[in-house]
């Protein structure tokens, strides 16, 4: 089961909630994996003494130019719409970061001087002792897009038993990942304090997509329940919770832990 944690804006606390949920699942002896889609891991799951080991290499198909067969006709450069191919005096350069692997240049070349090649753009890493914590570490010239998300999910499902729980943490600010995330995952934990954004999402999401669990900050719960979203889970926040989160401790707030227990119930997870 793929469970994604999405926050409507940065710093709202979706990572803290997901990390505490991870710990609770782990305590119940469930087979659970944490997948960070950036190189950051929440302080609760960070083990500074542990070493990262590479489990999978992420490749992308990038055209490679061959000088021997090239006729310098410039047709590849004309056909590239993303500006990833440019000609210098007597050579061409393919910019990996701009290329979107569309193969237009390869088909445009009459001399077959361009060929697709695997290029390493990042790695998926795993702690060597705490083996259920993973992160996707891309080269910093690569931006995490929908392609990378699909690839990461594909790699994770291929590598680990499918019946375990995968918690995906999406970095905030990357809203174009949301639509793909709704299709790929089974459950989406949507954490927000913005009623207008939730109403917009609520209209657009269809039934074949993921199940939504709405979590809101406790002070805006009244606004949500007035508009008919009384099923939202009110999550408390305070200085103490932030303090525990940033220092890498489990949140001890009773109301916070109750929300996590409610998540178990709404996902039909067997707690026994």
């Amino acid at each position, binding site marked *: 089961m793929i469970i994604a944690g999405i*926050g409507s804006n940065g710093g709202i606390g979706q990572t803290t909630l997901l990390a505490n949920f991870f710990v609770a699942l782990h305590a119940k002896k469930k087979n659970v994996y944490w997948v960070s889609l950036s190189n950051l891991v929440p302080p609760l799951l960070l083990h500074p003494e542990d070493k990262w080991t590479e489990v999978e290499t992420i490749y992308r198909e990038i055209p490679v130019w061959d000088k021997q067969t090239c006729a310098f006709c410039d047709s590849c450069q004309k056909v590239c*719409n*993303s500006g990833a191919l440019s000609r210098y005096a007597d050579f061409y350069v393919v910019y990996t970061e701009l290329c979107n692997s569309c*193969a237009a240049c390869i*088909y445009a070349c009459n001399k077959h001087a361009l060929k697709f090649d695997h290029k390493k753009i990042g790695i998926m890493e795993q702690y060597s002792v705490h083996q259920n914590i993973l992160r996707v570490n891309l080269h910093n010239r690569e931006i995490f*897009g929908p392609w990378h998300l699909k690839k990461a999910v594909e790699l994770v499902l291929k590598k680990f038993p499918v019946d375990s729980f995968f918690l995906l943490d999406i970095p905030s600010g990357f809203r174009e990942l949301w639509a793909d995330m709704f299709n790929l995952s089974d459950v989406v934990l949507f954490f927000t304090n913005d009623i207008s954004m939730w109403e917009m999402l609520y209209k657009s999401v269809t039934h074949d997509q993921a199940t939504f669990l709405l979590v809101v900050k406790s002070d805006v719960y009244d606004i949500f329940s007035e508009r008919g979203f009384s099923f939202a889970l009110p999550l408390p926040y305070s*200085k103490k919770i932030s303090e525990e989160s940033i220092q890498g401790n489990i949140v001890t707030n009773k109301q916070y832990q109750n929300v996590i227990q409610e998540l178990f119930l709404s996902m039909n997870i067997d707690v026994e």
Partner: protein
Amino acid sequence: MKEVLLISDKGGTGKTTLMKMMVEIVGRSAVYADCTFTSTWHTFPDIIQEDLYYLGQEAIVDDFLCIGCGDCEDACNFKAIHIIHGQAQVVRQSCTGCGHCIQVCPANALTLKQVIGGKIIQKNANGAIIVYGTLQYYPRNGIRPVRIVRDKAVDVILSYQKKLLICEAYPGWSRLTFSLIPFANILMPIVEPHPQVFEFLDNLKNYQHSYKSNIVLIVNKYDLNASVTNQIIAQYPQWNILTLPYSNTYMDESYDKLKSFIIPLLG
């Protein structure tokens, strides 16, 4: 012209809150550019100007010319074209605008159309000018038009003859930040004292080593993790460091602290 760039290692460290405080503090002598495409400026209703911008291309099918042969469906690497009832149809979300289908189409039924990416909006906030962008269409390879917003802000600066540009970049240490960093005179990283922060700060230190830009570090919510804050202060003595406490409202002691810190820096 002097340019200040706000960056951070992860989302939610308080860049936008700080930006709003700067609007209050520095006021109309600066122009503010929000390059993150997450609009939080709806509290200022006064729009000065809106401009559309184009971002990439996508294929469109001419239904009268399409013969439904399916060549484009085979050629597309992104599964963005399907033949439905003898007609090619383009899935807008998947199309990258590579133009390969146009080359294989025997009936010339496909053309490339420029896509409107969104708007660049200029707003008036009590005399100060804020420039930010909206994004309707997300390109598949994750590119964000951050430079379009920043360049627009520079145009505004030149036309109003201001001297200071305050810019906000995407969180993280990626290409979205690299495209803005070279223009900045003062880099202003805003971090929280979490244990992985040193990775980001070391990147910045290496950057400063080779490009010699000024760095003013702001540690937000420093009281949440005092040991890491002390470690940051000890490890980077060459930078100007300001520590701000945790607070739920931004108009309190941290406002005065920031005000007395920032005014002499910006001149």
